[in-house]
């Protein structure tokens, strides 16, 4: 894992740089200073952070109040509690009020692995997609993450950024430029398309390499920008593909798999779609990341298996 970096560290560095550039950023935490890896920020700006204790509703409401007063409020705590515990505060105080709050959902997906389902956020994208006004991003690599954060801090309005809880290697070279709404074609091929978001993009890239060894060419599409999303571009990238697999560490409902299904249907594609993720009506198992992904078939091996099944049933 060359150049692997934890996305929370990317986030904190972006905050430090932004304050240095004169942005009035106030991180709001719910006792989550270690989760946010925010010690370097506190060291530089000891009086800037607001810690409301273990109280996510107040975390989000307070962030909205800070934003109404002209601050750029950035919440930094675990995604499962941010989106579930403070659901109505996200809906009302942040989204409905259209406040300039940036919600950072840390350790999203099943990053907390063995800590079990209270600590898993496999519904966050589907929940936030139901709210108005808010933009939604799921970075897959450190460089992309930094560019998304820089965009989000400059954008005026609510943003949710889903961050994985493990160090992620770089997928992009220095020429990469994130654009809100744009899809990110990582690999081209004609036999099958893989569409993924967040950390599972790495599994898709790995799976594409393994499929290439078997003579199957794979198109790998990263969707970092859940909203806005250039649906026309996603449709075009899937045009002519007969087989599509979506991959996410999220429930198959409401995440990138649902988005792909919507686009395929809305644009009249005839492709067959297999959505890989946490199954309909299920929770992620409590297990180490590797074992959890294998169990739910969202690791590279699982993707390869599904791809071969689709190829054999074509």
């Amino acid at each position, binding site marked *: 894992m060359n150049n692997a970096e934890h996305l929370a560290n990317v986030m904190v560095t972006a905050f430090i740089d932004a304050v240095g550039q004169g942005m009035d950023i106030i991180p709001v935490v719910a006792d989550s200073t270690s989760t946010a890896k925010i010690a370097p920020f506190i060291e530089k700006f000891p009086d800037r952070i607001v810690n409301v204790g273990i109280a996510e509703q*107040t975390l*989000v*409401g307070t962030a909205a*109040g800070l934003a109404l*007063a002209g601050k750029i409020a950035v919440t930094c705590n675990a995604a499962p509690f941010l989106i579930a515990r403070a659901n109505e505060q996200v809906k009302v105080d942040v989204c409905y009020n259209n406040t300039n709050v940036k919600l950072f959902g840390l350790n999203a997906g099943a990053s907390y692995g063995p800590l079990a389902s209270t600590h898993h956020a496999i519904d966050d994208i589907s929940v936030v997609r139901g709210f108005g006004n808010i933009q939604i991003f799921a970075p897959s690599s450190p460089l992309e993450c930094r560019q998304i954060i820089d965009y989000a801090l400059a954008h005026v309005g609510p943003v949710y950024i889903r961050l994985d809880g493990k160090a992620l290697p770089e997928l992009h070279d220095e020429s990469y430029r994130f654009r809100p709404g744009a899809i990110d074609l990582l690999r081209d091929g004609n036999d099958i398309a893989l569409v993924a978001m967040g950390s599972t993009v790495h599994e898709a890239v790995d799976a594409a390499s393994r499929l290439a060894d078997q003579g199957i060419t794979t198109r790998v599409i990263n969707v970092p920008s859940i909203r806005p999303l250039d649906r026309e571009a996603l449709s075009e990238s899937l045009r002519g593909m007969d087989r599509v697999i979506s991959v996410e560490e999220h429930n198959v409902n409401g995440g990138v798999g649902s988005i792909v299904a919507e686009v395929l249907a809305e644009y009249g594609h005839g492709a067959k779609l297999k959505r890989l993720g946490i199954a309909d009506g299920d929770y992620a198992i409590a297990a180490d990341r590797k074992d959890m992904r294998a169990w739910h078939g969202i690791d590279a091996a699982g993707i390869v298996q599904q791809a071969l099944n689709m190829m054999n049933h074509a």
Partner: protein
Amino acid sequence: MNPFLLSVPELEKKARAVRRHIINLNANSPAGGHTGADLSQVELLTALYFRILNCAPERVEDRDRDIYIQSKGHAVGCYYCVLAEAGYFPLAWLETYQHANSHLPGHPVKQKTPGIELNTGALGHGLPVAVGLAIAAKRDNSKRRIFLITGDGELAEGSNWEAAMAAAHYQLDNLVIINDKNGLQLAGATREILNTDPLDEKWRAFGMEVSACQGNDMHAVVAALESLTPCGKPHVLIAHTTKGAGVSFIAGKPEWHHRVPKGDEITLAMNELKDL
């Protein structure tokens, strides 16, 4: 500074005008209303907007203006009538309360109505947001104060107490929480549904400076609001009110939580609310 600075007799006259607007506004609503809750907080909101608050329609962009948050969003009818009287929008709009896509929806919507600072309606949201506003004012060395009115039934929402702890921890003495304590909520008496008493002891235990007043007595309301001085703690003013205050057949009647006046009731109410 408040642009009106009305005397207590002038405030009492203004409160009667607000009550007449409340009767008409609810009578014209095609979708019911919260007449009892509206009438309950008339003195509180009238005193705030016409004597206490440092805010005015032409100063909505002023970063130092005081902020009022209507946490009990269902009493929006009173809020609209006071904002209209204060010049935030034309009085004629009051006839459109809850009409299709009106400027005056059934709960506060800042994108629709000038003067509204926060969209509310779901209960227990005002105080956490007020905490954020108050922290920001402290950090900006602003003299801004944040006022909000909560219902006593609303205090069953736990988010209020989370936020109260944060407010006390950050010593937000620029924050004024007014409890419109009328003792009634949707399903009946607050004491019987979920007793929030003793409220004063609860707030003190959470680190607040607490005072109380008769919330439908303008003299008492003005005296209580003007006696608040920064003391390192958030302020709580427990305003003992009567739901439906000012109209004899509405006052203290739980069924007026979600009722609007009709026919003869309008005439009867207006007779009671004539200027003295």
